[in-house]
C-alpha cells in the first residue's frame, strides 16, 4: 500500500505517494528528477548516493523514502547558495578533485559533513571522514586537497 510522504528537498517541500519499498535515492532520482545523486554499488558501500538528511550525511540507497518523511534533505543540487558554489564544490573545481565525476556528488556531500563537524581537519581526518566514499579514478589525493582548499576558504 502506498504511503503519503512529505519531504523538504533543497528547500522545496514535496508531497508524494510512494511504495514503502522505494529507496530514498530512487525517490530523489525518479520521482523528483534530481539525478545529481548517483547510484553506484546499491549495496551501501560506495557512498555515491550520499545526501544530507536533517544535516547528517547518509547513504540514500540504504534508507526507505518513507523513513525520510518529514525530514529536510539536501542533495548536491541544493548545496550552492544564491548562485555561489559551496566551498567544497569550489575546492573540487580549483584542485581538480574529480575525473569521471561519478563519485563526486557523494564525495562533496560527505566532505561538507566533515567540515561542518570539524572546520580544520588534518589530512588524516579528511581521509577518515571520506572512508565511506569510493573513487575509482583519482587516487583520492586531489579530493583531499580539494577539501583542504575548502577548509581554508570557509
Amino acid at each position, binding site marked *: *500500500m502506498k*504511503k503519503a510522504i512529505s519531504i523538504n528537498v533543497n528547500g522545496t517541500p514535496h508531497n508524494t505517494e510512494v*511504495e*514503502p*519499498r522505494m*529507496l530514498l535515492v530512487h525517490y530523489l532520482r525518479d520521482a523528483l528528477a534530481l539525478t545529481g545523486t548517483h547510484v553506484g554499488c*546499491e*549495496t*551501501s*558501500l560506495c*557512498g555515491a548516493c*550520499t545526501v544530507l538528511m536533517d544535516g*547528517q*550525511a*547518509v*547513504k540514500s*540507497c*540504504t*534508507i*526507505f523514502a*518513507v*523513513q525520510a*518523511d518529514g525530514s529536510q534533505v539536501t542533495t548536491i543540487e541544493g548545496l550552492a547558495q544564491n548562485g555561489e558554489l559551496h566551498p567544497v564544490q569550489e575546492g573540487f573545481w580549483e584542485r581538480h578533485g574529480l575525473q569521471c565525476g561519478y563519485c563526486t556528488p557523494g564525495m562533496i556531500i*560527505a566532505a561538507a*559533513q*566533515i567540515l561542518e563537524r570539524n572546520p580544520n581537519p588534518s589530512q588524516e581526518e579528511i581521509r577518515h*571522514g571520506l*572512508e*565511506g*566514499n569510493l573513487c575509482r579514478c583519482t587516487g583520492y589525493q586531489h579530493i583531499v586537497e580539494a577539501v583542504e582548499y575548502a577548509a581554508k576558504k570557509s
Partner: protein
Amino acid sequence: MIPVQFDYVAPATLDEAARLLAEHQDEAKLLAGGHSLIPAMKLRLAQPSLLIDIGRIKDLAYITEEGDQIRIGAMTTHYQIEASERLKEICPLLPECAASIGDVQVRNKGTIGGSLAHADPAADWPAAILALDAEMIAVGAQGERTIRAQDFFVDMLTTSLEPNEILREIRVPQPQKNTAQAYMKVAQPASGFAVVGIAVNLTRGDDGRCQSANIGITGVAAKAYRASNVESALAGNALDEQTIAAAAAHAADGVDANSDLYASADYRRHLAEVYTRRAIQKAIAKL
C-alpha cells in the same frame, strides 16, 4: 536490488510498537537504523511483510547517567556515542568502539540497539557490551525484563530477545577509578566489519596489580564472547609485558573459530592473541 513489497508503520510510542510486534511477530520486523536490515531486504535474504519503524518513537535516543549506571537508549546512533564528550571522559570504550564502526554515513544512521539485536558475529558492539558487563532492558507484551550481556548473545544472528520483545535500553556500570579501557579491531578491508575486535575493561588496584579484567572478543566465533582464561590470567597479577603476553595467549581458548575467504580459523586465532595483547597494552598506557 529492490526488496519485496511490504507494509510500513511508524508507531509514535514504545507501547504501540510492542503491541504491533506482538500482533504481527511472525511476519513483521522492527526497523531501527536499517543498516543491517535494508541490505538484507535488498538481497531478499529478509522478506518481512510488515516493517515497524521504531525511529519515530520519541525518547529512544539518549545517553544519561542514573546512579552508578550509564543508560543508552536503543535508538542512539553510533555517531552520537562516538561524539559524546561525557562518554569519552567516563567510559572511553564506548566512543572508541563506536568510532571503529563502518564509515561516517553508517555511524550517522546505524544504532547501538539495532546492532546488538542483530548480533552479527563480526559486529563491534557485542565485544564492548560484554567487556562492560552491561545489561539490556527488553520490553515485550508481558512487560519489561533485564538481560545480562553474558546471556544476551546466543549464536550467530541470534540473541535471547523473544520475537515479541524490543530492546529499549542498554545499561552500563560506571567504570570506577583506575579503570583502563580500549577497543582495537582488525577491519575487513572491504566491509569494515571486525575480522577480530577486542574490548578491554580492566581495573588496576592501588598495589599496581590488576584487580579485575573483562575482555570481550568479536569476529572470531559465531558469537562474541568473554575471554575468561585471559581474564583470570590477569586478575591479581602485575600488569607487566610477560603477564600480558602469557594471558593473551588464551584469547581463543575453547573457541570454534570462523573461517572465510579473508581469514582462516588459525589466522583469526592468531589475530585474537596479538590484538588482545595490544589492546590490553593500549588500555593500560592510558592509566
